[in-house]
C-alpha cells in the first residue's frame, strides 16, 4: 500500500468540542427531565432542552466555520482529505447499524413475536393462555389486546415519495458530476432541484402522518405495527431533514465559490449521506409498505 504523507495539520486547541459537549449535556438532561416530568406541571426540562439545542446550533455553525476557513486556507492535505472521507464512511456505517436495530425489531415482530402470539411453532399454549381470540396476520391491524388500526397502503403517497427520493439521488449525482467537471452553474441547478425534492418529500411525510393519525387510527400506541412504522419512517424523516440542511449548506458554499473539481470533501460527504438516506428509504418502502 502506498500512502502519501504530507504535513498533517493538527489544530492546536479548539473550544467547539467542549461547547458541543455542554450543548449535548443540556439536550440530554433537558429532554430526559422533560420526558420524565410529562404529565406534571414541571416545565424546566423544556427550557434546558431548548437552550441545549441553541448551544448545539451555535457550535455547529462555529465549528464548521472554522473548518471551512481552514480548508479554504489550504491547510488540509490529501492525507487529511482521506481521513475525512474514511471518517464519514464509518459514520454512515454506524447509521446503517442504527437503522438495523429498528429493521431487526420489524422483522422479529413479523416473523417471530406475532406468529408466536398466534400459537405458531411450539407456542400453542401461549395463545390459549394469553389471548385465545388473537389471529396472527401482518400487517397487525388488531393487536392481541384488541386495539384496532389500519395499515398504510404503498400505492399513492408512499409510492410518490419513493419516486421523489430516487429522483433526488439522480439529480444530486448530476450535480456531483458537474462539480467534477467544473461546471458550476448546473451544479447549483441540480443541487437546488435535489433540495426541493427533499423538502417535498418531507412535506408529503407530514401529510401522511396527519392522515394516519386523524383518519386511519394509525398511531404510536396502535400496537407493534404502529411502533415499527413510526419509528422507522420517523427516524428516516429526521435523517432526510438533516440531509436537506446539509445540502442547503453545500448550496450556499457552492454559491460562494467554494470547492474545486478535485477537492470537495464536504460535497462528497453530503452526497454520500443523501444516497444512504435514499437507500434506507428503499428498504423502508419494501419492508414497511409493500411487503
Amino acid at each position, binding site marked *: 500500500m502506498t*500512502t502519501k*504523507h504530507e504535513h*498533517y495539520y*493538527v*489544530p*492546536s*486547541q*479548539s*473550544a467547539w*468540542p*467542549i461547547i*458541543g*459537549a455542554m450543548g*449535548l*449535556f443540556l*439536550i*440530554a*438532561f433537558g429532554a*430526559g*427531565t422533560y*420526558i*420524565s*416530568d410529562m404529565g406534571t406541571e414541571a416545565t424546566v426540562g423544556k427550557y434546558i432542552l431548548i437552550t441545549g439545542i441553541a448551544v448545539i446550533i451555535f457550535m455547529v455553525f462555529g465549528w464548521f*466555520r472554522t473548518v471551512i476557513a*481552514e480548508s479554504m486556507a489550504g*491547510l488540509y492535505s490529501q492525507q487529511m482529505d482521506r*481521513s475525512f472521507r*474514511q*471518517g464519514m464512511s*464509518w*459514520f454512515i*456505517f*454506524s447509521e446503517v*447499524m*442504527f437503522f438495523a*436495530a*429498528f429493521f*431487526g*425489531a420489524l422483522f*422479529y*415482530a413479523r416473523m*417471530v*413475536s406475532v406468529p*408466536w*402470539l398466534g400459537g405458531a*411453532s*411450539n407456542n400453542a399454549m401461549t395463545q390459549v393462555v394469553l*389471548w385465545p381470540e388473537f389471529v396472527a396476520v401482518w400487517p397487525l391491524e388488531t*393487536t*392481541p*389486546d384488541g*386495539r384496532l388500526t389500519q395499515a398504510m397502503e404503498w400505492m399513492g403517497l408512499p409510492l410518490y415519495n419513493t419516486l421523489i427520493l430516487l429522483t433526488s439521488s439522480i439529480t444530486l449525482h448530476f450535480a456531483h458530476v458537474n462539480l467534477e467537471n467544473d461546471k458550476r452553474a448546473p451544479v447549483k441547478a441540480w443541487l437546488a432541484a435535489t433540495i426541493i425534492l427533499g423538502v417535498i418529500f418531507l412535506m408529503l411525510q407530514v401529510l401522511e402522518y396527519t392522515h394516519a393519525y386523524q383518519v386511519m387510527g394509525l*398511531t*404510536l*400506541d396502535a*400496537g*407493534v405495527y404502529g*411502533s415499527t412504522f*413510526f*419509528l422507522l419512517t420517523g427516524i428516516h424523516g429526521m435523517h432526510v431533514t438533516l440531509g436537506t440542511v446539509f445540502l442547503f449548506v453545500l448550496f450556499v458554499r457552492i454559491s460562494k465559490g467554494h470547492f474545486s473539481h478535485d477537492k470537495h470533501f464536504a460535497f462528497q460527504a453530503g452526497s454520500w449521506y443523501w444516497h444512504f438516506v435514499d437507500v434506507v428509504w428503499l428498504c423502508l418502502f419494501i419492508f414497511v409498505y409493500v411487503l
Partner: protein
Amino acid sequence: MNTLTQENQVSMDGSLQDDHNHDDGHHAPPSGIMRWLLTTNHKDIGTLYLWFSFIMFLTGGLMAMVIRAELFQPGLQLVDPNFFNQMTTVHGLVMVFGAVMPAFTGLANWMIPMMIGAPDMALPRMNNWSFWILPFAFIILLSSLFMEGGGPNFGWTFYAPLSTEYSPDSTALFVFSIHIMGISSIMGAINVIVTVINMRAPGMTWMKLPLFAWTWLITAFLLIAVMPVLAGAVTMVLTDKYFGTSFFEAAGGGDPVMFQHIFWFFGHPEVYIMILPSFGIMSAIIPTFSRKKLFGYSSMVYATASIAILSFLVWAHHMFTTGMPVFAELFFMYCTMLISVPTGVKIFNWVATMWKGSLTFETPMLFAISFLVLFTIGGFSGLMLAITPADFQYHDTYFVVAHFHYVLVTGAIFTIMAAVYYWIPKWTGHMYNERLGKLHFWCSVISVNILFFPMHFLGLAGMPRRIPDYAIQFADVNQIVSIGGFAFGLSQLIFLVVVIKCIRGGEKAPAKPWEGAEGLEWEIPSPAPYHSFTTPPVIK
C-alpha cells in the same frame, strides 16, 4: 454573528501560529484548566480518558462495596432492596461504560499514534469531543440516583419490562446518558480506525502493525457495528415507556424477549470490545519480559479477527432459558464453543512466547501472567455456561457473576493495570516504585480470588444474582467473598499512590526502560514530547 466571525478569526490565527510551532517540536502545552478543556492533543486526551476511567473505577467500586456490605450477612441490613438494585445496575453501567471502555480508549489515544508513527489521532477535534461528552453522560446517569423514585434499578442489561413497565420515572435520563456514551464510543472508534488505516508511517505494513493497534482496529469496528444497536434498544425502551409503543409488550404484538435479542446483539460483541484490546496489551508485554519475539504474530491477527466475526453469532447464549426453539439453542451453543478455538490459539501463543524465554517478573509481567491464568479460568467457566442444558442450572446464579468478573476484572482490568505499569515510564518520564507495584499486584491477585472464586460455588449451589438477601446456608461463603471484596477495593488505593508518586517524581526513565521491548514508542524520549513524530519515521 459578527462577533462570532471575529472570534473565529482570532482562533484561526492562533491555530496557524501554533502550526508553525509544531515544526520545531518544542512546543509546550498551554497551562491551566483550558489546556484540558480545549486540547486536541492525543496524549492530553489519553490522560483525560485514563483519569476519568480511574475515577469511575473507584465510583463503581464504591457501589460494589455497598453490594458486598449488604451481602455480608443474610437478611436486609444496610440498604433497602430498591437501592440495592440501583447499586447493582449502576455498578455495572459505570464499570462497563465508565471504567473499562474509557481506559482502553485512553490507552489507544496515548499509544496508537506513537506506535504507528503518526503525529496525532486522525481527527483531533472530534477526539476532544468524544472525551468531553463522557463525563457529562455520567453526571446525568449518577444524578438520576438522587431523583425522586431513584435511578435505574433494572440491572445494567435493562431488560424489558423491568426497564419499561416497572422502571422509575428517571428512566429517560438513563436512556439519554446511554445515547451520549454511545456517541462517544462511536466517535472514539472512528478516530482509531481512521488513524490506523490512514496514518501509519511509511513502511508500516499491515503485518508489521503492533498487535495493540491491530486488536484496537478490530475492536473499533465492533464498536461502530454495535453501539448504534444499543442506541436503538434504549430508544425503543424510551418510546415503550413514555410514548406508548409496543416493541416489548406482548399485548401490542411485541415481545419482551425481542429486547433481549436486540440488547445481546450489542451485548455480546461488547464483551469482546472489552477484551480484545487486552489481548493487544498482552501481546506487547509478554514478549518484552520474555525477551523473545511474540510467537505466532500472524495467527494472533487472524484469531482476533475470527473472534470478532464469531462474536456476532453467539448473542443468544445469554438467553438459553427464554424458551427459544431447540435449533437456535444448539446453533448458539456450538458457535459459542467455537470461540474457544481462536482464544485458545492466543493463550497458546503467549505461553509459547514465554517458553524458554529469559523471564523477569516486573509488575506489568506479573499482571500479564496472572491474566493468562485467571482469564483462562473465566474462559473455562464460559465454556461451562455455553453448554445449553448446563446453563439451565447456572443461569442467573452467582456462577455467572463469577464468570464475567473473572474475564472482566482479572481479564480486562488486570491488563489495563499491566498496561499502565508498562507504559507509565513513557508517559511521566519516571519509573514507578517497583516495590509498591508488586505490593499492589500481590494484594490484588490474592484478594480478587478470595472475592470471585467462591462465587462459583455459591452459584453452583443455587444462589441467585442481583438479590439483596439470601438463604442462610450461603452465609459463610458470602462473608469470605465480602472480605475479599473489601480487600480488593482497598488494594486499588495502592495503585492510586503508585501512579501519583510516579507522576510527581522518581527514578528517571530512559527512552526504553524495558530491555526486551520493541516498537516505535520506545524510540522517542521519556516522557514522550508533547508532539511526537511530526514527520513520520520510515519503517524498514
